[in-house]
């Protein structure tokens, strides 16, 4: 699963330094940087990062609200990057805290644990298929190709492929025949549907 991270801090030195460390952890496929609150807002909306590493002073109450709303079902993990004194209370909203003087190993361990504990992102949080994924599953079982599925459901083939990826990831079943058994077991389909 390709994770994307966002680093937000006013200081370019901090951003670049943190980036260098985080890149070596090999957790994220893409890492972006935001140097001001406006860019931060913008990027959250545009890219919906899986993990946001942020200087707590950059986050206002309204911004936190915005993060929660704009990232919809995909939950962004909040990591505070701390190098000055903060009210302990104010740090409670964060999922993890990184201190600026911590070693690379420690930071890497914290980030890895964070991602593992949350089972990546909200997308695969629980292994129940979404309505759309079920639609794709049913057509898949009937032997339709990606292209046929895309035109039947009015979505792009790219979306079909990503649905398929999510289905196999959630269920851990890859073959069409195996998915058929799953669908029958869960009452998504009947034998007549297959005929």
């Amino acid at each position, binding site marked *: 699963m390709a994770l994307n991270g966002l680093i937000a801090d006013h200081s370019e030195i901090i951003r670049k330094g943190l980036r260098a460390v985080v890149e070596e952890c090999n957790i994220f496929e893409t890492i972006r940087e935001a140097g001001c609150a406006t860019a931060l807002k913008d990027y959250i909306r545009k890219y919906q990062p899986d993990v946001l590493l942020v200087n707590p002073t950059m986050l206002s109450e309204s911004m936190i609200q915005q993060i929660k709303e704009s990232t919809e079902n995909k939950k962004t993990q909040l990591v505070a990057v701390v190098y000055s004194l903060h009210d302990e209370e104010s740090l409670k909203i964060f999922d993890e805290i990184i201190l600026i003087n911590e070693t690379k190993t420690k930071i890497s361990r914290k980030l890895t644990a964070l991602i593992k504990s949350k089972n990546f992102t909200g997308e695969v949080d629980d292994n129940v298929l979404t309505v759309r994924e079920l639609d794709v599953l049913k057509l898949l079982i009937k032997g339709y190709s990606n292209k046929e599925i895309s035109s039947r459901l009015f979505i792009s083939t790219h979306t079909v492929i990503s649905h398929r990826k999510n289905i196999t990831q959630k269920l851990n079943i*890859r073959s069409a025949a195996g998915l058929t*058994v*799953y669908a029958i*077991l869960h009452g998504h389909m009947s034998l007549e549907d297959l005929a």
Partner: protein
Amino acid sequence: MADLVDSDSRSMVLLTRFGIDLGFGDKTIEQICKEKQIKKDFFLLLLNVFLNPDYFPNKKLKNIDVNLLLTYLANSHRYYMEVKIPLLRELLQSFLPGMHHPVKVTLEAFFDGYIQEVTEHIEYEEQVVFPYVSILLSPQMGKVPDKEFQEYGIRIFEKRHTDIEEKLSDLKNLMIKYLPPSETDRFLRIRIICELLDLEQDLVNHARLEDQILIPIVEQLEQRVKR
């Protein structure tokens, strides 16, 4: 030899493929290999591949007797077809009646499809790939430049080398996660899952032998012979 089996029971399956039966008393690996006329190095090589998932015999590739390797692979095929799959089928046959009709039907179809796939894969290897390798090995080959033979290449096999493990792992996950709990079939279900895990591991090793040892050797042979 007894120490080997004691330390890792998976080696028992390997022994059967070399025609070594249990009951060997205190004989050493060397003694038994001599008795059965098995090349000790080859035996040890396969043992390592079998027991150690990261083992890769870079340097020893040249010394491998390809004929022995083919015999070993064919023996493994026989073991899957004659022992493992019938056993799984039998276990499933006693398990299925407890299921709802639609589940039963689809599971049965799924398993039949899987056997079909395995059978085809094995037949393809034995009827196309292995004879091809044998021709490569035989010295008279150069006399009759068969066009079909010239155009075939182990690369084709590599492309065709479908993943027959996929369905097996699906079946395992269905048994572990998705089939509804049932008190009556509890132990039968565990047995089936154990069998599936065992076969899965065996097939992984088998595929590694083919992909990492057979194919590289044959590629070298191709370069020598076809030039």
